[in-house]
C-alpha cells in the first residue's frame, strides 16, 4: 500500500461574510506518494482554490487535510518547504533576469548557495533559456516566462509538485518537453505530482488517476478506465463532458439575422 501524500477530509473554502460563495465544498481525497494525479474541472470549478489550500496560500474554512503527513493548518512551514507550485496566474519580478529570479526563489526556499548556482544553471539550460539568462523577464514572451516559472517551482527539488495549467502557454516543442519532464519526475525521481489542466490529452497521458471537480465539489475520481467505465464513454473528453453536465445544445448561430448561409 503506497504512502498517502495528500489526504483531505471534508476540506472546504468559502468566501464572503457569511460564506455565501463556496469555492470548495467538502473535498475528501487521497493522493498517494509517487502518483501523478490530474485535477479536471470547468473554469471556476475550484481547482485553483484546491491547489492554493494544499500549498497553505489560503486557509480552509472547514474540514482538515494533511500534506506529506503534516497538518495543513498547524504545519504550514513544513508543507511549504516540501511542495513546489506552478500557479495558474503566478507573480513574477519582471525587473529581474531569469537567473536572478531563480536565485531569488532559491533563497526563499533556503537552497544552499553552491547547490543553487549549479541548479539554476542546469535548469536554465534544460529550458533553453541559458543564452538569455541575463535578460530582464519583462522582455520574455509568455511561454518563456512559463518556463522560468516551472524552473522556479523545481528550484528546491521538492517531493510534491503542483502544476496548474503547465502547458497552456507553451509551444508544442516546449509543451512536449514539460510533459516528458513531468513523466520523468514521477517515474525516475519519485515525485508526487498534481496537475490541473484543460488540455485533456496531457492529463490522459500523464496521470495515474483523475479527479473531476465541478462547482466546488469532487464529482468523480478514479483511473481513466474507471471514469470511462463509469460514464460509459469511449474518450476522456466525452466522459468529462458527461460528468460536468456537457454542453447545452443551443442554436450556435442564433445570434445572426436570418440571411443566406454564405453571407
Amino acid at each position: 500500500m503506497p504512502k498517502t501524500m495528500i489526504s483531505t477530509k471534508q476540506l472546504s473554502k468559502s468566501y464572503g461574510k457569511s460564506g455565501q460563495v463556496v469555492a470548495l465544498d467538502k473535498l475528501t481525497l487521497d493522493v498517494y506518494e509517487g502518483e501523478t494525479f490530474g485535477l479536471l474541472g470547468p473554469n471556476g470549478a475550484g481547482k485553483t482554490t484546491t491547489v492554493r489550500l494544499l500549498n497553505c496560500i489560503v486557509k480552509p474554512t472547514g474540514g482538515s487535510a494533511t500534506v506529506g503527513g503534516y497538518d495543513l493548518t498547524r504545519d504550514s512551514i513544513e508543507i511549504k518547504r516540501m511542495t513546489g507550485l506552478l500557479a495558474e496566474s503566478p507573480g513574477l519580478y519582471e525587473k529581474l533576469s531569469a537567473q536572478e529570479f531563480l536565485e531569488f526563489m532559491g533563497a526563499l526556499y533556503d537552497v544552499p548557495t553552491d547547490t543553487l548556482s549549479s541548479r539554476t544553471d542546469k535548469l536554465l539550460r534544460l529550458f533553453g533559456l541559458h543564452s538569455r539568462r541575463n535578460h530582464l523577464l519583462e522582455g520574455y514572451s509568455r511561454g518563456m516566462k512559463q518556463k522560468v516559472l516551472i524552473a522556479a517551482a523545481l528550484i528546491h527539488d521538492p517531493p510534491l509538485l503542483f502544476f496548474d495549467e503547465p502547458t497552456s502557454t507553451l509551444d508544442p516543442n516546449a509543451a512536449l518537453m514539460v510533459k516528458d519532464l513531468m513523466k520523468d519526475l514521477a517515474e525516475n525521481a519519485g515525485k508526487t505530482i498534481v496537475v490541473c489542466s484543460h488540455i485533456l490529452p496531457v492529463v490522459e497521458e500523464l496521470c495515474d488517476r483523475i479527479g473531476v471537480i465541478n462547482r466546488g465539489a469532487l464529482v468523480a475520481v478514479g483511473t481513466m478506465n474507471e471514469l470511462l467505465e463509469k460514464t460509459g464513454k469511449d474518450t476522456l473528453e466525452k466522459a468529462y463532458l458527461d460528468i460536468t453536465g456537457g454542453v447545452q445544445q443551443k442554436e450556435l448561430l442564433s445570434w445572426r439575422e436570418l440571411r443566406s448561409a454564405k453571407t
Partner: protein
Amino acid sequence: MRRRKWLVLAKNAYLIRTSSFGGLRYALPFLIGVPVVVAMFIIVPWIADFFLDELELFFLSSAAVAFIQIILFTMFILFLTFPISFSLNSGQEEHYEVLLSAPLKPKDVILGKFVGDMPFYSVGVIAASSFLVALLLPLGLGVIQAIMIMGIFLLTFFSALWIGVVLAAMIRSKIGSSARGKDVGKALSMAVALPMVGLMYAIMSGMVYSALLDSGSKGPLAFALDLLPSSWGADVVVSFALNPGGVSDMSLEEPLRFAAMIVFFVGALWVGTKLADRAYSLESQSLSSNLARPEGQFYRTVRAVSGGGSFGSLVVSVFKDYGRRLENVSKVVYIIGLVMLVTFFFGGAEDIEGGLIMLLFLLPFLSGFIVGEVTVRGKENLFIYRKAPRGEMRLVKARIVQSIIVMVPLTVIASAISLTSVSGLDMGYALLMVLYMVALSSSLIIFSLGLFLMFPVFSEKPADMMGNVMILSFFMMGCFFATLFLSLFGEAAGWLLILTLTSASGIVALLLGVRNLKAIE
C-alpha cells in the same frame, strides 16, 4: 447609416471617465450646470456688488492684465500637461490594439479622446469663467462681452487640451508599447508634473506676478507669455472690464484677438489630425530587451549589510526590482525636486528648525512612495512569499532593510538642501538635526510599510496609493500641531515627542499590517 467613429469613441471615453458616478453620469453636466448658473447670475453678482469700487479700481490698474494672464496661462499649462501625465501613467496599450483593429482612422481615435474628455474638464472651466463674468456683471458687462469671455476661457482650454492629447499620443507612440516603454512613460508622467509645480510655486511666491507687472521694460517672461493664446485672451478680458457695454463699445482689436484665438485652435486641430497617423502606433521602437548588469560593488555591499546568506539575496532581489523601475526613481527625484523648489521659492529661514519644517511634511510622501509599491504588483506577487516557508516575515524584513537603505541617503540630501537656505548655520547642531531626520525617516518607513500592509494597494494608480500617504501626512501634521499646542516646537522635547509618536505608531501599524498580510486571500 454609418456612425461617426470619433463620436462613438468620445462617448466611450466620457463613460470611462465618469464611471464612478454610475447612473448619474448622463445627468452630470446638468447637475453641475444648475448650481453654476445660480452662482453666476445670482450669488456672485450679489457679492460683487459690495466690492464694486474695489473691482473698478483693480481693473483700472496694470495688475489686472497680469492677474488674468496668470490665470489663463496656468489653465493653459494645466490642461496641456494633465492629459500627457495621465496618458503616460495609464500605459494601457491593450485598448489601442482593440481600437486599431477596428475599421477607423487614427484621427478618429485622437478626436474621440479629445471630445470625450471635453465635458469632464469643461465643467471646471465654465465654472471658473462664469465666476469671472459674474464678478464683472455689476460693472455693466454686455451679453456679447460675457459670452466672449466665456469663449476665451473655453478656447484656451480646448487648445491646451487638444495639444496635450496629441502630444500624449505621440510620446506614447515614441516610447513604444514594450514593458520598458511603459516604465519610461510612468517615469515621464511624474517628471512632467514637476515643472508645473515649479510654476505654481513661482506664482504663489509672487515672482511671476512681479515680472509681469514690470511692464515698463518688457522682460523675457512677458514676451514669452505674449506668444501664447492665453495672453491674447487676457487682454480682451481686461479691455471688456475697462469698457463694459454692447457691441458698439468694442474696439476692432478685441474681436480680432478673439478671432486669433479661434484661428489658433482650428489650426492646432488641423495640424493635430494630420499628425494623428503618426500617433497611436503599437510599433515598438526597439525589439531589444534589457540586460541585467552583473552585480557590482553596490549590491555586494547591500548583500553584506543585510547579513548575507538567503536573506541578503532576498534584499538584493527586492532592491533590484525596485531600483530598475524608472518610475520609482522618478518618484524619488520628484520629491527631491519639490524640496529644491520649496527651498528656492520659500526658503530663507532664520534657524535650522525653520529650514527643516517643510521637510517634516515631505518625508511622509517620500516614505510612502518608497514603500508603497510593496503590494502594487498584485496578490499573485505576494503569494510567492506566502508559498515560501515564513515568506511573509521575510518579505517584511527585506522591505524594511531595502527601504531604509534608500531612505537614509535621500533624507540626508533633502536635509542638506533645506538647510542651504538657513543663514548663519551652526554646523554641529545642523549635523545633529540631520541625524534626527534620518531617525525620523526610518520610523516613517516602518509606519508606511505597516499602513500599506494594513490597507494594501493592488493597483499602480497613483490615486489609490495617495490614501495611505495622506494618512501619514495628516499624522505628521497632527504631531506638528501637538508640539505647537504644547509650546514645544523647536525644543528638544518637541522633536523627541514627534519621533516617539512616529516610532510607536509605526510599530503598532507594522504589527497590524503583518497580521493583515497573513490574512490576505
